[in-house]
């Protein structure tokens, strides 16, 4: 069975405000799809309609070709979802909470027990398995929420900003978990506005803004289509570099298509080409002996695209 998620004309209005405007999107197959957009773009609204937490004003959401609105229970049976940052009853322990999830999903007791141990280990919560939730930090609760999402080994995994509340190590662990899940025949659909996270784990991206889908494509296609191969890199120098030096010596290096000043010691340089072109430009700037101390990609290509598309949509 090929896992799939599909929105057909999915629309949500809150009074006169349209949070999501006729979203038509189908994602299927074993892959990870990043659902991007600024705050208020309609990401969480979409995911809530996929889990029947809110109801569409128009349209329908499908999980594995089953309508969530018409057959909620069947549709959600093969889906694990983490929406916002749920709370779990304070007097339960993670093990009991996962037992409840397993029982509601119809898992056998032995399977629940073994999977509970597995997923709690996966989210590094084994040693807290029998402590009550009331004592947990936000990050610890979020780890258990992720564990509950994975407990039933679902075909479709929906994650709404799963890194919320986690420290940097926790965020890295979430990325690692998602990468592990990718290779196991699942469809992972997760919303985020942390672009580095999306670049790190996603195969495809869909961008929404103001309730409308701006594009949906593979990460490679998006990058190629919108950047035309150029990237922006920041160069940092030990001492101030004059405009005349930059114009005469850096801007003339083959592959450099433009520059702008960040401050007196830092420049943003546009380089045409991929990593090889950047390596050549770096070597040549270093050879100028201007005191180069740092050279790194200023923003990811996706970030450039994101900001450009969002600002276009806003205007």
């Amino acid at each position, binding site marked *: 069975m090929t*896992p799939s998620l599909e929105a057909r004309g999915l629309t949500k209005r809150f009074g006169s405000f349209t949070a999501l405007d006729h979203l038509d999107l189908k994602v299927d197959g074993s892959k990870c799809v990043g659902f991007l957009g600024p705050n208020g773009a309609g990401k969480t609204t979409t995911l809530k309609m996929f889990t029947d*937490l809110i109801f569409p004003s128009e349209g329908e959401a499908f999980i594995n070709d089953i309508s969530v609105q018409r057959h909620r229970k069947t549709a*959600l049976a093969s889906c694990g979802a983490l929406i916002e940052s749920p709370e779990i009853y304070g*007097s339960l322990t993670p093990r009991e909470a996962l037992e409840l999830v397993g029982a509601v999903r*119809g898992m056998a007791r032995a399977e629940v027990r073994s999977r509970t141990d597995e997923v709690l280990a996966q989210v590094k919560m084994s040693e807290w398995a029998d402590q009550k939730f009331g004592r947990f930090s936000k990050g610890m609760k979020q780890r258990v929420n992720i564990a509950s999402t994975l407990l039933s080994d*679902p075909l479709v995994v929906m994650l709404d900003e799963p890194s919320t509340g986690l420290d940097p190590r926790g965020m890295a662990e979430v990325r690692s978990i998602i990468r592990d899940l990718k290779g196991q025949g699942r*469809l992972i659909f997760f919303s985020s506005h942390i672009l580095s996270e999306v670049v790190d784990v996603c195969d495809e991206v869909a961008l929404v803004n103001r309730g409308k889908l701006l594009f949906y*494509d593979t990460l490679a296609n998006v990058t190629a289509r919108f950047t035309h191969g150029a990237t922006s890199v920041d160069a940092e120098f030990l001492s101030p570099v004059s405009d005349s030096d930059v114009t005469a010596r850096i801007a003339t290096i083959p592959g450099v298509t433009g520059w702008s000043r960040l401050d007196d010691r830092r420049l943003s340089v546009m380089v045409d080409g991929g990593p090889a072109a950047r390596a050549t430009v770096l070597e040549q700037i270093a050879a100028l002996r201007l005191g180069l101390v740092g050279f790194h990609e200023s923003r990811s290509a996706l970030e450039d695209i994101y900001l450009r598309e969002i600002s276009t949509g806003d205007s």
Partner: protein
Amino acid sequence: MTLSSEPGPAGPAQLGRVPESAMQALLMSRYQFRDYLRSQRFLLMLSIVGIIAAILSAVVLHYRPSGLIDSSTSFYGNLWVEGAGVLIVFAGIIFGGDAIAGEFQNKTGYFLMGLPIKRWSVYAGKYLAAFLASLLTILVYFVYLVLFAAYFMGARAISGPLFESLGLAVLYLSALLGFVFLFSSLFKSSLYAVLVVAVLFLFGFSIIQALVVGLVHIEPWFLLSYASNLTNSVMAYPFVGVPPHMVTDPITGNTSYNPSYAEGIAIIVGYFLWTTIGGLLLFEREEFT
């Protein structure tokens, strides 16, 4: 928008069948009941029962009022009916007040409602758990009173009408919880739900009943609190007979009403049905925005 895609590999192991909704409701009630038993609210309810029992014991043992300790009708009519009436309201508020509103306010609903479970299963499971937790505390009070009565009256402490009254009190509890769940579904704030129900049952309905009977001179058949008088009336049936439906004081001209057995039960069952269905419909339509 669609991207063509290769199907995934074999895919994760698929689950067994998701249980029937009724079974899921029972599962929900089991975990919710466990949550109640471990919570401070259960201790709070037991404390309330304990305080009431301690005060009653001290006062009755010290003054030994003969009118009370010689007659099981009088004993239970005063201590059981009045005490249980208050305890049922407290239990309903404490266990049911935030049962549904809390799912929205505390965001626990996001944990449950993303699962393959129908909303009515969650509602029914939570109702059942609140009912059992409330019943447990009422039974603690009941057992205390029976033991206390037995201390004075021996075997006479146990009578058929007492258990009939207990049954009616349990029926009243089910309707009151339906009412509490209705308001809990209506508000996304636990505080509002608890406040409205507390005000209505502790003061509001009594005031309405007094106004309706005193000023408009009609029977307050539409009030659940009026029907709950049956738990008291039933205690007197074997001794003084069924109280008259309407009594007019010849001196003051004031009229008072007593619900008949069938009428009282009909009001309680009616309340249970409309509040439970109403609350469920509200919960079904409520969005986790």
